[in-house]
């Protein structure tokens, strides 16, 4: 499993997304995954080997590195990207479940009806496989839940990064007095400015993704509200016309009787 494999999975699930969802996926893969793989991983490549402390005491560097970098930025971002991508698979699972149910019904229906041509059945199954379900009903709820989870994961990881590293800036120098360091030693971090630039870049991309997710959620809610208002209007007009029809009938009957 690698980033391209995850991309292939998500693109498949993306068929049932809104346009904002598709934009979100592009931003995720181009500005976050691609930048992580192509640029950021090489910046953090020597983070431990080039973490130097002003002491010859063996073990001091290891201990100080572990104290100031409990989990590397790169690993945090990888986890964040994996967690943020997976709610989309909820939607894919629901669509697969729906298709499975419809397929069963189709096969049962054709069995009962007698011999439907096998070609016709194959065509129907293909259409079932290829169709794009409208985001309504249970699928709407699944999709909305996946958006909420995405937002929670994004926010959670950004907060974790901020808390663990006390902000998004990487200092040049940290002071460490963990055993076995003999006293308060200066330890120097490799490429702090470049790391700060990339941390800020990734945080910005993460915020853009959060904004897109919120916009998508707002769009879904608005669409659902409009749909329910329209269906209420339709019911009212249907109700009116059926009442009119019954009134006309009774009028007609009364006329005929006279």
């Amino acid at each position, binding site marked *: 499993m690698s980033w391209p494999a995850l991309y292939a999975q998500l693109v498949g699930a993306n068929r049932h997304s809104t346009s904002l969802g598709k934009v979100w996926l592009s931003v995720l893969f181009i500005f976050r995954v*691609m930048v992580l793989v192509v640029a950021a991983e090489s910046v953090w490549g020597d983070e431990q080997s080039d973490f130097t402390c002003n002491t010859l005491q063996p073990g001091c560097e290891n201990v100080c590195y572990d104290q100031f970098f409990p989990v590397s930025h790169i690993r945090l971002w990888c986890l964040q990207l994996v967690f943020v991508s997976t709610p989309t698979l909820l939607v894919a699972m629901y669509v697969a479940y729906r298709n499975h149910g419809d397929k069963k019904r189709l096969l049962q229906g054709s069995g009962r009806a007698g011999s439907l041509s096998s070609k016709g059945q194959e065509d129907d199954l293909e259409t079932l496989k290829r169709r794009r379900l409208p985001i309504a009903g249970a699928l709407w709820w699944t999709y909305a839940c996946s958006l909420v989870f995405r937002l929670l994961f994004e926010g959670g990881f950004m907060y974790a990064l901020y808390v663990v590293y006390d902000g998004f800036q990487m200092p040049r120098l940290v002071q460490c007095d963990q055993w076995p360091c003999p006293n308060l030693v*200066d330890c120097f971090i490799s490429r702090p400015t470049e790391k700060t*630039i990339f941390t800020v870049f990734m945080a910005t991309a993460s915020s853009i993704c959060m904004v897109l997710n919120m916009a998508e959620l707002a769009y879904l809610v608005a669409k659902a509200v409009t749909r329910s208002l329209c269906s209420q209007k339709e019911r009212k007009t249907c109700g009116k016309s059926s009442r009119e029809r019954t009134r006309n009938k009774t009028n007609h009957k009364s006329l005929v009787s006279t």
Partner: protein
Amino acid sequence: MNWGSFYAVISGVNRHSTGIGRVWLSVIFIFRILVLVVAAESVWGDEKSGFVCNTQQPGCNSVCYDQFFPISHIRLWALQLILVSTPALLVAMHVAHRRHIDKKILKRTGRSSPKELEHIKNQKFQITGALWWTYMISIIFRILFEVAFLYIFYLIYPGFRMVRLVKCDSYPCPNTVDCFVSRPTEKTIFTVFMLAVSGVCVLLNLAEVVYLISRACKRCFGGPEEESKVAWISQRLPTYRQNEINQLIADHSLKSKLTLTKKCPTEKGERCSAF
């Protein structure tokens, strides 16, 4: 996700580009991304390990390296290439949106045969109307990003030459120490090369802008009938049904005119001219 998959994503946009756009895309992939991956990355590979300062003071190397190389050339170029290539996706999104609308219309007019849908999928859109504006905006963004990165490059590394020696006195260096950069000449050569190709890309984008504007002007002022027909087909699809109705009305009114003119033979000449 790597440059290969990125290429697959971006080159899909190529179908709807102009000739200059395709040349630009080839220049980006061959002279910039390929050179970056195949050559430049190995030149800058040991930039930190090969950066040596004339001191035994631990940490002095790191600090001086960080002071003189806030962001590596390689990373700057990678970011530049990503940001410069992505406006092309605007065009891809617009085209996808148009296809979606056309499919919807076809379904509503009851002509959603697989053949027609396949035709919609493979249809190449003319760069007119709203697509022209999207394309234009994407080129302008490309130019802005290129120029912005060239400027950032100039700010961070004034001059295109990589020096052999830098003098550094940041803490914890005990005094002003000499620090030596690894492979300065090779880095200078590649820097000049990448900047030159970046300049060529800016020129190609400007040429494309001029070409699009001249094509639009030509369309407005010369050959209006031909272009308006094409524009009508590609843009007025939503009114297709209305046009069918209009055609029916026109045919009906023509029929009634014909029945009238049968009785009035003197208007024969006019009838012919109406056709």
